[in-house]
């Protein structure tokens, strides 16, 4: 193991000569934005048939490094060597041509196209007349989706897919590229265990064929299981690298965070079981034409001070339930009661006024205002009261933001910087802060820690527990089962739009949850 | 206002035309500039009114700043331009209006115009002369709301509406002064009518020429008499070969020449015209009096 120790200054400068088997190597790559150094002389070697994990806190520079490898940004210094030859990538297309394909963290697909077209965009298969070969395209799409264990029909419109399904399409796209190196930037952040298992199998199959994988994830168990070797970045500097077999999860955490992480308190402080805040009865979503599943006859309650977890596989309908309660989608049937009173929000505005908050799952589409500043993004839901005539109080906004910034260890240049300059995880923190500042009585969080590093995740978990302790009712939706298990007092499982079971948080484990999540509907 | 500049003084005048997209005004301008060259030492600046009163006001204001010696303007709106014209005169810049007057500014040096209403009356009279027993008429109007379009429409109506039993307007539509629409709208009207009309009267030559094509495509040549307006080169050709029955000449060239002469004489020598209202009589041009048309010289090429 070549852990370089936590003292960043002495590390990577000593350029490691990569073994000759390396397919791709980076030598002293540097990159800065507006004079702020984001990557500082990073070196890395990738080998055929191996999985290399890239680890680091939010904002450590992982995605930036990946952007350099996939031709999106150009490095300020250092060299990229492909098969021993120095190359300069001219753009994403160039990288692809050289056999490097990337699953981006903030991926974006083609909402108006079909799944098949999105997967084959830029290289549609042609028939012998030189025309698009629709049938072959559909077949290959179905095949790769099957490999990933996703039942997504090739002709569905991408816009109708959930974020997790879109993630699978994005993965499918990279797989069909037949690349020599596949870069995966947090591919599992919104996937449930079943899909993650499939992905692992796919990765193994790929490596068996000699494909090289660069893997980014904040789920360290996954990393431990899948990777052969690792590199840890902190503040843009390599602080450790080596074989994964030689490092424990605790080691990895220590290198990433630069300190010992407090053991997470997993004991479930029994909720003080306050009054029922949310009561959902026979809730139904409106039928959609091309729908594979919709919510049907779901009933449950959430009490003040209670964290209720909602678990299910991709497409189970968790997000839909959250959106129905929040008034984001029209209700198709059933009833919702809030604090004992009938509640039928006409839109999110009503829900917010009634003390309900929802942190949506899709950051880019549903949360971020790309042209606005960090502080404006933070204040967008009106958490900070305005003065008379709706005049903004910027000082108060700044103060409130400062509070969360410290609490969630947000890394940013300043509150007035554009939100786009933040790393994915830090953007998520801003979004969380936006909703927490509203001080809701019912907080619904949909994939709240998507892309958040483990340090911040622990902070966030602590925060959620404190909120519950203060009497807030929390509905937690997460595809990260350990997270659901660690936080929930009660866990509801969902499959194909119907509840299939309920477990007390203290009794549940991943196995029992998985069993309920995959139960056929009839057994509900 | 200011003293005469003297006989051989350099003179700069601004011509604010209604638009330079219509051949009528382009020809007027060319003749005006030709006359200016003949007079000598007269510099003519062009400003394109783009059919817009605010644009013309802005141009006049700029010209005053620039310090021109005189202004010739074909106003887009008789009321709207009055204050700007007044301001120019107050600033010592004499103004001649051309094509049509501005309202309520008696200080204007002269108005050189051929009244559009009068011209359209000549058009109507030509129709009445050719069809003394009455006719069914299609009326192709100009851009809705446009001053010229309104005047010409009015002129045709005042003449022919005197005998409402004889002259029937079977369809009145706008073709927006364009040949393209003149063609399409005429095709549509002809389809909609049970009987072929005897007359098509158009508010400009472009629409009339478009209508002539529609008529020709229907093989109705000779069965429908088409009346244009403007005396443009193409229209004169069409009159001579019989595809148009008549067009109306307002003698824009003459207007331009008179206007510039009047203005320069005043600037140089302080001579005011005997009558401030110099009217050029419009004439309907048919095959019979083709030679009277101002642009007859241009159709030979």
């Amino acid at each position, binding site marked *: 193991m070549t852990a370089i120790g936590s003292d960043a200054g002495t590390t990577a400068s000593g350029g490691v000569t990569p073994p000759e088997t390396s397919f791709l190597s980076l030598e002293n790559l540097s990159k800065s934005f507006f004079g702020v150094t984001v990557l500082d002389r990073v070196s890395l070697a990738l080998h055929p048939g191996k999985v290399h994990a890239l680890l680091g806190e939010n904002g450590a520079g992982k995605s930036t490094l990946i952007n350099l490898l996939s031709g999106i940004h150009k490095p300020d210094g250092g060299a990229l060597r492909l098969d021993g030859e120095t190359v300069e990538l001219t753009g994403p297309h160039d990288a692809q041509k050289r056999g490097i394909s990337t699953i981006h963290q903030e991926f974006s697909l083609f909402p108006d196209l079909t799944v098949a077209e999105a997967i084959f965009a830029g290289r549609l298969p042609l028939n012998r007349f030189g025309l698009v070969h629709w049938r072959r395209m559909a077949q290959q799409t179905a095949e790769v989706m099957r490999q990933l264990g996703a039942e997504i029909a090739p002709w569905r419109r991408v816009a109708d897919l959930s974020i997790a399904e879109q993630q699978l399409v994005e993965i499918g796209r990279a797989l069909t590229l037949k690349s020599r190196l596949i870069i995966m930037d947090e591919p599992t952040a919104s996937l449930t265990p079943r899909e993650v298992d499939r992905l692992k199998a796919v990765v193994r199959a790929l490596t068996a064929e000699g494909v090289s994988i660069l893997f980014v994830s904040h789920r360290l168990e996954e990393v431990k299981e899948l990777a052969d070797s690792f590199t840890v970045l902190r503040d843009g500097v390599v602080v450790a690298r080596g074989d994964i077999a030689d490092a424990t999860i605790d080691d990895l955490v220590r290198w990433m965070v630069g300190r010992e992480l407090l053991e997470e308190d997993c004991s479930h402080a029994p909720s003080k079981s306050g009054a029922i805040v949310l009561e959902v009865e026979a809730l139904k979503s409106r039928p959609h034409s091309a729908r594979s599943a919709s919510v049907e006859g779901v009933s449950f309650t959430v009490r003040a001070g209670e964290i209720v977890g909602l678990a299910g596989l991709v497409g189970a309908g968790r997000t839909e339930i959250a959106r129905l309660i929040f008034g984001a989608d029209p209700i198709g049937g059933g009833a919702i009661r809030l604090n004992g009173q009938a509640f039928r929000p006409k839109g999110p505005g009503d829900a917010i006024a009634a003390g309900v908050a929802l942190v949506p799952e899709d950051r880019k589409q549903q949360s971020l205002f790309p042209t606005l500043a960090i502080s404006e993004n933070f204040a967008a839901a009106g958490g900070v009261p305005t003065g008379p005539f709706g005049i903004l109080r910027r000082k108060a906004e700044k103060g409130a933001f400062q509070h969360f910034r410290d609490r969630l260890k947000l890394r940013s240049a300043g509150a007035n910087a554009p939100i786009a300059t933040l790393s994915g995880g830090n953007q998520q923190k801003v979004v969380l802060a936006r909703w927490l500042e509203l001080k809701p009585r019912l907080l619904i969080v949909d994939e709240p820690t998507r892309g958040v590093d483990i340090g911040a995740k622990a902070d966030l978990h602590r925060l959620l527990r404190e909120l519950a302790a203060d009497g807030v009712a929390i509905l937690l939706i997460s595809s990260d089962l350990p997270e659901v298990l660690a936080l929930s007092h009660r866990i509801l499982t969902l499959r194909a739009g119907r509840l299939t079971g309920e477990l007390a948080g203290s009794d549940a484990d991943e196995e029992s949850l998985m069993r309920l999540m995959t139960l056929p509907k009839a057994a509900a | 206002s200011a003293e005469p500049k003297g006989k051989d003084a350099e003179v700069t005048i601004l011509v604010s035309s209604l638009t330079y997209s219509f051949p009528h005004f382009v020809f007027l301008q060319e003749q005006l500039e030709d006359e200016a060259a003949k007079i000598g030492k007269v510099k003519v600046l062009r400003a394109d009114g783009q059919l817009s009163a605010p644009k013309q006001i802005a141009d006049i204001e700029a010209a005053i700043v620039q310090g021109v010696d005189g202004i010739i303007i074909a106003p887009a709106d008789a009321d709207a331009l009055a204050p700007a014209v007044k301001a120019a005169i107050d600033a010592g810049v004499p103004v001649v209006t051309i094509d049509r007057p501005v309202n309520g500014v008696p200080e204007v040096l002269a108005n050189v115009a051929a009244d559009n209403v009068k011209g359209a009356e000549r058009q109507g009279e030509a129709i009445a002369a050719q069809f003394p027993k009455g006719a069914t008429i299609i009326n192709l109007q100009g851009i809705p709301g446009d001053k010229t379009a309104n005047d010409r429409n009015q002129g045709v109506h005042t003449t022919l509406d005197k005998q409402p039993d004889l002259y029937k307007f079977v369809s009145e*539509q706008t073709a927006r002064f364009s040949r393209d629409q003149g063609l399409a709208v005429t095709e549509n009207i002809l389809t909609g009518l049970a009987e072929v009309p005897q007359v098509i009267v158009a508010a400009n030559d472009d629409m009339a020429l478009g209508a002539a094509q529609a008529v020709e495509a229907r093989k109705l040549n000779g069965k429908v008499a088409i009346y244009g307006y403007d005396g443009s080169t193409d229209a004169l050709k069409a009159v001579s070969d019989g595809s148009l029955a008549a067009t109306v000449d307002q003698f824009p060239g003459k207007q331009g020449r008179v206007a510039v002469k009047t203005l320069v004489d005043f600037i140089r020598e302080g001579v005011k015209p005997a009558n401030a209202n110099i009217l050029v009589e419009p004439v309907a041009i048919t095959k019979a009096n083709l030679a009277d048309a101002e642009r007859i010289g241009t159709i030979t090429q």
Partner: protein
Amino acid sequence: MSLASSPPLARQRPANLIALLARFAPLIFLLLLMALFTFLAPRFLSSLNLFNILRQVSIFGIVAVGMTFVILTRGIDLSIGALIALTGLVAAVVAKGGIPGRLELTAGGGPFAWYWAALAAIVVGGVAGVLQGVFVARLSVPAFVVTLGGMTIFRGLALIIGNGGPISGFDESFGWWGRGMVGAVPVPVIVFLVVVVIAGFVLHSTRYGRSVYAIGSNPEAARLCGLNVNRTLISVYALTGLCAGLGGFLLASRLNSAEAVAGNQYELNVIAAVVIGGTSLYGGTGSIAGTVIGTLLIGVLLNGLVILNVSPYVQQLLIGAIIVGAVTFDIFIKKYKR
């Protein structure tokens, strides 16, 4: 998405009546309008009149086909009206062998044949389109601004060439393209059909066509997928320019005259036709079939209101209302379907 737009969806069988309605909403609206006009004026449905309409929309429709490509990429082209005027004048100048007194252009003594005129118009249109495309693609200037500028510039050039007046009187072979007939069918209608078939085929069945959809749907993703976004963007403006050039030539031929004020405000009607046909201004969805329907709808409207002899002032009102109505109908039905 409508009218068999993107093929894979087209192959899905519509689940029910509403889905069917939604797919053919613009067509249904067109048929309803035609039924109404026929009811009010039976003459409307005569074959003579239907050919009239077809002839009248053909030039307009050719440009709308090009515009469909542009709008599919989220773009817009406001310059086409001016470009029609400019290219028409270019064709005229070539066919007349120059501008008297200013330019001499002769082919071995005589003026140039129609095909040189047509070629010149099309080439000028294409070049103008490429230039605009370069600003849109390479310099990321919004298409609205570039083509608004283009509109003024091309109109200015047209005025300079024609010196404000028309250029008219061409030979028979030149005039055949705008006024000739093949059997009972006017030549411009045939040209329109050919353009429609080629464009529909390119858009729906070739890689290039699909990349137009992909770029309109998400330009950023398209770039990451290795599509040559810039080149495709430039090409769609070039295509529209070519269509405008062809349109300019046909218009000059049809009118036997070209002038700088031709095609005024054409762009608005053309864009309306494309949007009525179900192509989204936000890019990524639409079809040539839809554009044809939209074009016919505008043609039927202009023709029907005149046949009914509606007052020109009221016509303006009705045209506006019906355009908004048609698009609202389409959107409403599609929303209801969900």
